[in-house]
């Protein structure tokens, strides 16, 4: 069933929308959640929460691409769950490593507090993504949006792990330099 029809069911408050969502995007959402939480039960909880969040958000939201919408919800819910539970205390897991890697990009961003500044930063980030070579962008987002491991990314794109690490490091440096060039020092 196509996304448009599923979304229409949400608008009609037809509970079949949830079942169809689970059928079509359950494994996709679960993968995102599991990458972040590294725990079956936690990942299943996050996926459940995603369905409820989607039910509450649609309407009024009308996502054009349901997979991206659901994936974003799952990612946010899972990161939130990860922060609340044990990983922040004991370290470990892809999220902790990803955070450590990203820390070099935020050196000049300590004063970003105002919503306006955040919006401008988002624009700068989007421009950065647009200008990245496709391979680097895909690797970057696989790591920091999907929270995939280096190994999984290497397998997905047919790269060596060292190449993935090198691409990520280069991209992080570019991102930091872009933020500095745009005035975020």
């Amino acid at each position, binding site marked *: 069933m196509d996304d448009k029809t599923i979304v229409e069911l949400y608008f009609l408050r037809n509970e079949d929308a*949830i079942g169809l969502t689970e059928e079509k995007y359950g494994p996709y959402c679960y993968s995102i959640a599991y990458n972040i939480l590294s725990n079956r039960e936690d990942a299943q909880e996050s996926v459940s929460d995603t*369905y409820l969040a989607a039910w509450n958000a649609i309407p009024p939201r009308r996502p054009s691409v349901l997979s991206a919408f659901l994936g974003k919800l799952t990612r946010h819910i899972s990161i939130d769950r990860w922060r609340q539970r*044990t990983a922040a205390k004991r370290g470990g897991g892809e999220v902790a490593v990803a955070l450590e890697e990203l820390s070099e990009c935020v050196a000049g961003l300590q004063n970003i507090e105002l919503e306006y500044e955040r919006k401008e930063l988002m624009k700068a980030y989007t421009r950065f*993504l647009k200008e990245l070579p496709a391979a680097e962008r895909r690797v970057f987002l696989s790591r920091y949006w999907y929270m995939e491991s280096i190994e999984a990314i290497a397998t997905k794109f047919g790269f060596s792990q060292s190449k993935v690490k090198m691409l990520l490091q280069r991209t992080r440096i570019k991102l930091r330099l872009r933020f500095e060039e745009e005035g975020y020092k």
Partner: protein
Amino acid sequence: MNTYDLLELIGDTPEEYVLDAGGLGQQTPAKKPMGKKLLLIAAIVAATALLMGSAITRLIALRTEKITVQMPSNGDEQLSGPENTTAATETTSSIPTAYEGERITFDEVHNVFIALPNYYPQQIPDGYTMTFVSNDAPLQERVIYYENAAGHRITYWLIVGNPGTSIEIYGIEQKTGVKVNGLPGVLYDQRGGMRTLAWIDEKQGYGFALRAEEDTVDLLAMAQSTAEGAPLKPTHSDKTLQALAELGDFSPGYLPEGFEEYAVAGYPLMEGSWYSYVRKWYVNREENKLIYFEYETYKLPNGAWAGSEAKTASAAFIPDYHRTNGQVPHKQIQVDGMLGLMTDRHAAWADPEKDRVFHLYSKDVSPEELLKVAQSIRENP
């Protein structure tokens, strides 16, 4: 902005780039998920109000996971497990360098309020007496000790919700699935005669555990005698009253609709110590929401107080502010003339004259409501 914020920013990546990078090697859930969860969600969206109805059949889960304690040659202990591994260190000593064990955790699988019941073993082995009952705080767990004349102890845990309690078991010689009055559980026989038994009541959402040091204790019989009994007086309940007398009895004059005071716990200043506290919990049972209020004595490391340091003292009690070195969105507040700070979920303010810091926490109410509660807090006459 910190790295968490950057991670959130990345989360807002335009969809076309996310999809372009996608094509996940999709994990398969361990089992076809969520038959019961879909029923739960359908119940919610169909606006059947009571979550405690027949739609929910399982409120708690018992989870076990293997853990290893590494013992490096310098004698420092390092814990590793599924989330955290440490490199093994080489040693030529005959002392074992790693201890295998298991960790038991009780996980909530619901979002309903469950009050801590008066459940405890009604039959105690000969020679043992109850020597300690924990405070009802922190709201979701009770621990009871039974001891005999030789100093051997039996420990009883009762857990509701998800307080993060875990029980670690080492020297496992045998692990057996058991039933306690028909409820699922697991029994560990450990080296030296110690045994640990954990079981759950899935329908009511209760988790239980018993640990005995002596192998002569009939642990299963003791577990099977667990039932509702007369309310127990926490061992330190008089300490709570002393703490209230020392620190004052503060309460909010305003609570959001549906909230009530649920529990109070405190500990007075001990001789030679600088620390005492009072903790209060306010719950909305119907919506399973919580507001946590605590005040305690606090001296800065240099032992001195100054009016301007109220902000520093307050900040120390807001984990996000402290961890991010002040970068989390926050604002200054004033409560009854005392200066403080507030983030979205946490408010803290300090009374330098009386060496007291107050803090209020909730993830279940809006920041505006939280501030309203904070600003209504006064000392009761």
